[in-house]
């Protein structure tokens, strides 16, 4: 694999942190703690690449997505888009930079305003970024967008309830494409869809990426879908990335115990593999992100934990037994996806 040159990087975060304050009192609010939703995330996204982000509910995936598109303000850290730190930009400069990074949301049923026509929904970004398309050409541009995502341009005056779930997700994608971004952050874009519709939307996202050279951050809890669409994958646990690598490294050669447990729990649609795969059953629940365990955050559920795991936080780095970055003192490969002899 060729070493990517720096100019290929379209998005880079460095030590990105988002803490939500926990307050007590109604009139006089005092902060009594913080939910450490995203707690020091470093990642790079390259041109034309899809980075999958996986992890259990509450690990910080959506918060990360919102930080990237500017819907939440980071507590600290930086977000560089094409070499500009978004967290430092203001006013017109910020607006222009934001055009470049758009978002597609999970729920096609609630993320679209039911009282707006499809044309208005897709064209709405042009109201904010009036410089992108001259007023007179908007309708034409919206029709092109509808066509691009496989919807009938004649349906421009229909309302969201007149479309199915998969079609609504296409509307969401068309809207995200309106400002011609380079980067699209997809937060669970197919999770609410039926399997037969899911494949339609996945194929659409792949086609658009090829045609438009888009880069995707693809967030999902379905590890099979992520394997299908992602070039690289980041595994999150309690606000941190615990393992990151190319698709093959994460699925064929996972080295972090959490990744291994997660993968082993995913059922495979093949009954001949029943009981043939290595099964790791995790005990207990994810600890509260307001009060994460010391040292390694996974240690309360980890079957390999030693004293050092409570004392020293393992860095996300390559290790003797892990060719790709893994945040475990005892990282080593284990086959959990295929049958074991």
């Amino acid at each position, binding site marked *: 694999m060729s070493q990517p040159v720096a100019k290929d990087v379209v998005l880079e975060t460095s030590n990105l942190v988002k803490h939500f304050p926990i307050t007590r009192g109604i009139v006089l609010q005092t902060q009594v703690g913080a939910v450490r939703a995203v707690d020091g995330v470093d990642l790079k996204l390259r041109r034309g690449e899809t980075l999958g982000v996986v992890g259990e509910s509450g690990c910080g995936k959506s918060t990360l997505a919102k930080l990237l598109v500017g819907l939440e303000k980071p507590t600290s850290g930086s977000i560089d888009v094409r070499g500009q730190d978004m967290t430092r930009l203001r006013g017109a400069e910020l607006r222009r930079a934001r055009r470049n990074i758009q978002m597609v949301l999970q729920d096609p049923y609630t993320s679209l305003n039911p009282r707006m026509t499809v044309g208005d929904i897709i064209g709405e970004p042009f109201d904010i970024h009036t410089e992108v398309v001259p007023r007179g050409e908007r309708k034409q541009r919206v029709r092109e967008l509808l066509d691009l995502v496989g919807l009938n341009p004649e349906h421009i005056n229909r309302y969201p309830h007149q479309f199915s779930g998969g079609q609504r997700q296409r509307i969401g994608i068309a809207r995200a494409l309106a400002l011609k971004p380079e980067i699209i952050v997809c937060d669970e874009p197919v999770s609410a869809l039926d*399997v037969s519709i899911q494949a339609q939307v996945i194929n659409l996202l792949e086609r658009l990426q090829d045609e438009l050279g888009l880069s995707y951050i693809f967030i999902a*809890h379905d590890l099979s879908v992520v394997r299908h669409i992602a070039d690289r994958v980041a595994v999150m646990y309690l606000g941190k990335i615990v393992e990151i690598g190319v698709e093959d490294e994460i699925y064929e050669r996972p080295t972090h115990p959490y990744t291994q447990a997660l993968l082993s729990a995913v*059922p*495979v649609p093949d009954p001949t593999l029943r009981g043939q795969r290595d099964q790791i059953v995790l005990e207990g629940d994810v600890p509260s992100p307001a009060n994460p365990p010391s040292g390694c955050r996974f240690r309360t559920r980890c079957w390999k934990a030693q004293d050092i795991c409570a004392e020293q936080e393992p860095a996300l780095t390559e290790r003797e037994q892990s060719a790709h970055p893994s945040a475990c003192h005892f990282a080593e490969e284990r086959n959990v996806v295929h049958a074991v002899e």
Partner: protein
Amino acid sequence: MTDIKAEIDVLPGLDSSARLLDVENLHVEFRTQAGVARAINGVDIHLDPGETLAILGESGCGKSVTAQAIMGILDSPPGFVTKGAIRYRGVDLLKLPEEQRRKVRANHIAMIFQDALSALNPVFSIGFQLGELFRVHRGTSRQDARRRSIELLDLVKIPAARQRINDYPHQFSGGMRQRVMIAMALALDPKVLIADEPTTALDVTVQAQIMNLLAELRRERNMGLILITHDMGVVADVADRISVMYAGKVVEEAPVLDIYARPAHPYTKALLESIPRLDMKGQQLNVIKGLPPNLLRIPAGCPFHPRCAYARDVCRADPPPQQYDVAPARTARCHFWTEVVGDEPAGS
């Protein structure tokens, strides 16, 4: 055991040599303002003790309505069973007065729902809700009910059950609430358990815990389990048999190994080819064109024909008249099942 006596009192005509559960030609419709939605159009399913039957299908195909009809909890009106029989050990439940159905529901057939939080009462403690089952249905004393509630929470592996019994539903995690639901369903020792998407809202790690727990309890109690799901991975892991539903009908029924190896209905085949697999890379995803039908206007002929890769003129005119026998214990509702079952699965 007084419990058994109570059962026999409840259900005159119960025949222990008859099939555990036998649903025959079930029809359900919803009479709404927009018209009559024909949600279930002749469903046949059956279940034996200790067996796991998966009902698989996409949103709106009638999985939950089938379960609600079996349980006798259909939203009525607008929902009505218009035809068919639901026999539990030979007794047609549809012919029982509501009073007796309520007792069947508690003692013989139990159900767990996708959304445990909304199925539990937020204002009562877990212990009270469990204990109430014993007090009402078994006349158990308060103290005994409490003891048995703790035993049940232990059974479903709630840690420190004795301490947690006075907690309220919101104090439990999603996975723990689903365990409490399972405990409540099992309280009166049912012979049939229907689990409607029991893990859809949960993380995969928790899903694995719950599925293991259900399998263990089913085995120990020799219960019949109906698992409703749209997840073909979960089905491959736990089911003995599968009924695939489309537009309110069972379109294919088969033992689990056969159906994955050689589907006999185009819909099953297309579904299997449209899901990404964890253990494969660079897979080509097959797209099923179009959408499931609107139940107010189910297409003439075979309801799958607008989306079917095998469809011909006969499919647009005539629905497959029956479930064809593909093999012993295997049926498919398709004119061209021989062709489908003979085709190599794509992508392998």
